[in-house]
């Protein structure tokens, strides 16, 4: 025994959970969706994801090293997660320099400007994505058709997303006829991922598997994804019941666009979502509501990215006013 004993306040044991492990868990949960996208969009998905991850990590390293002059933090894998998520909300036939630019905005503006991990108010991947979407709308809305693993990178054969098709024909044709159009994928295809769209958003089944994994590993809780999905079902269902000829059914809204990717992986981002479970539910309802308002009433076919960023901005307010249920606060011992 050495002569000196360590003395520190309790607790003297630690739960072995680490930030790196949580990030690894998120990456594992993203794997099924990655497999699906590679199967449908080909090796281009691997290239885009690789470039996004690599540039996010390199930018974080460079900013940490030369601008902030702080301890290197890329080992915590949060930049890798940001890179994958950014890639997952881009189409596969986007020029690589845009991916690099998006990564710079995501990591530089979205994260490091505020002080790095834990300090950013907005989801960094979505900051990068929205920057690209508003600055390069043409490139960001050119969706390749899912043609299988051997699809070439920058394939010219593009088509609209299901939400795009609906928006385009809205008011001109009844929904039932839009649904019957040749270019509209069936529900099974939507569920499995055979449709045009961003890299990671297409495979509903794969995303749900990722969610179950994260719930099982206690990486996330049910509150955010369930409240978003529930709100979308309620609103879409209500609109559909009132006027089925003008509104798509709730299942369509669930399976298309970035809803599941957003609800499971973007909105649940620890740093930018509320801390208490009650707060998380309010946040989730807000995202579901804004998503449906944008999808149904705005010029954009899809609104998940804006809905999440808007609710990100409300998060500090939610944290200030929505407190967890305190023990012994409202006592009902009847």
């Amino acid at each position, binding site marked *: 025994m050495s002569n000196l004993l360590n*003395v520190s306040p309790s*607790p003297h044991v630690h739960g072995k959970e680490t930030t790196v492990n949580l990030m690894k868990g998120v990456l594992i949960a993203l794997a099924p969706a990655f497999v699906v996208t590679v199967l449908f969009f080909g090796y281009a998905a691997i290239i885009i994801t690789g470039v996004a991850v690599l540039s996010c990590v390199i930018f974080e390293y460079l900013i940490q090293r030369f601008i902030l002059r702080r301890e290197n933090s890329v080992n915590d894998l949060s930049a890798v997660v940001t890179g994958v998520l950014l890639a997952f909300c881009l189409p596969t036939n986007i020029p690589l320099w845009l991916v690099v630019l998006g990564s710079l905005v995501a990591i530089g503006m979205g994260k490091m400007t505020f002080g790095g991990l834990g300090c950013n108010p907005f989801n960094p991947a979505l900051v990068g994505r929205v920057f690209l979407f508003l600055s390069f709308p043409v490139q960001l809305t050119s969706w390749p058709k899912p043609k299988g693993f051997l699809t070439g990178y920058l394939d010219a054969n593009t088509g609209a997303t299901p939400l795009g098709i609906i928006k385009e024909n809205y008011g001109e044709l009844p929904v039932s006829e839009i649904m019957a159009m040749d270019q509209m994928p069936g529900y099974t295809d939507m569920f499995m991922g055979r449709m045009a769209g961003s890299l990671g958003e297409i495979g509903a089944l794969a995303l749900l598997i990722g969610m179950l994994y994260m719930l099982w590993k206690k990486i996330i809780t049910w509150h955010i994804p369930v409240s978003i999905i529930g709100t979308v079902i309620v609103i879409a269902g209500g609109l559909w019941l009132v006027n089925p000829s003008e509104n798509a059914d709730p299942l369509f809204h669930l399976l298309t666009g970035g809803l599941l990717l957003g609800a499971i992986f973007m909105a649940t981002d620890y740093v930018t979502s509320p801390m208490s479970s009650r707060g998380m539910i309010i946040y989730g309802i807000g995202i579901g509501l804004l998503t449906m308002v944008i999808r149904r009433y705005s010029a954009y076919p899809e609104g998940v990215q804006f809905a999440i960023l808007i609710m990100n901005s409300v998060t500090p307010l939610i944290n200030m006013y929505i407190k967890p249920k305190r023990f012994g606060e409202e006592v009902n011992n009847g």
Partner: protein
Amino acid sequence: MLKTFPLGGVHPPENKFSESAPTEELPVPAQVVIPISQHIGAPSDPVVKRGDIVKVGQLIAESKGFVSANIHSSVSGKVAKIDGVTDSSGYRQTAITIDAEGDEWLDSVDRSEQLTKEVKLSREDILSRCHEMGIVGLGGATFPSHVKLSVPPGKQCDTLIINGVECEPYLTSDHRLMLEKGEEMVVGISILMKALGVDKAMIGIENNKPDAIEHIKKISAAYKGISVHSLKIKYPQGAEKQLIKALLNREVPSGMLPIEVGAVVHNVGTAFAVYEAVQKNKPLIDRIVTVTGKSLANPGNYRVRIGTPVSALIDAAGGTPEDTGKIVNGGPMMGKALNKSDVPVVKGTSGIILFPASESRRVRVTPCIRCSKCITVCAMGLEPYLLMSLAERDMYDIVEANKVTDCMECGSCSYICPAGRPLLDYIRLGKSTVFSIIRERNSK
């Protein structure tokens, strides 16, 4: 479904190495050091002086005031000195040092092993006997038992809750006590029931002690009103408010005591000590202490006289292992790290844990990722991340508004934090500062 408390909680690895080691009697040490403050409340007044000859069980320090406890000699011999020592918390306090000679007990103490079931003392006499015999809560808080048994005017107690949870990892002293002294403990419970004037007692035991649950169930079947409940394993279930919630589904209001919801909670060790005090006239001069650790040769449970040096206990368990890096007095979640092993065992010492050097340092601190795990595990529904960042910035008014005074310092937040942040350290700072601000405000 097993009962438990609904809000928060963690389940650390149990590591109960010593659960099947029968309690051994530790030989009387050559010298004991007995501090005069081993309980919550006013320190006692020494009533012996240097050179006095004392017997086992003789009063050596008298309780000062209502919230205080008598202290008795745990050995027979000569008072060597009365002076300042460093206690297990690192504070200086007065202690009575006695050199042991032989083992001569006071005649009034009944040392027979015979079980005495019939409770002859009246309610008032039980209370004064507990006070006289220096009985304090043996779960760790060491609150004088006679105070807890005196229901304040205007309040009603309907249920006595007996805490056999032992939710702290490593510790097994309560477990062994229930197995070995179950009969006496249940008589102790009936004494406590009589003192409180209740006809219902609930014993809560966590599900990782099926043998104890079975054993106590069998014994208590012969007693009216005593029931045994197995509880889901979850820390901090041994905390009073959490245990009451688990067993009675009543929530003690913030800032109030259990009596507010008609419950009084006593530990199984206290019930046994009350049995000895009331039926055998024996003062609280010894207790069971778990000595354990991953590298320890013989982790075990020892009945040890109060005032015995901790080092003697460690020697009995096989000596300090080479790789020891930390010695903890109490459980791993709430215990205190010792800076030396020659401090005395006191009434509140439930266990001694030796951690290998590899487990004795804290993990690296990284930025908070706001994962909200600290909120999820907080059994009081607080926001540890917020309390920490506010305390770091000296914003104590907001710390107070966010209920820091409800924190029981169970350590679940620091335990779970993936960023290894010292949440509880800052919460303690916030809590003690807020308490002194409140005191100052009230004194104006």
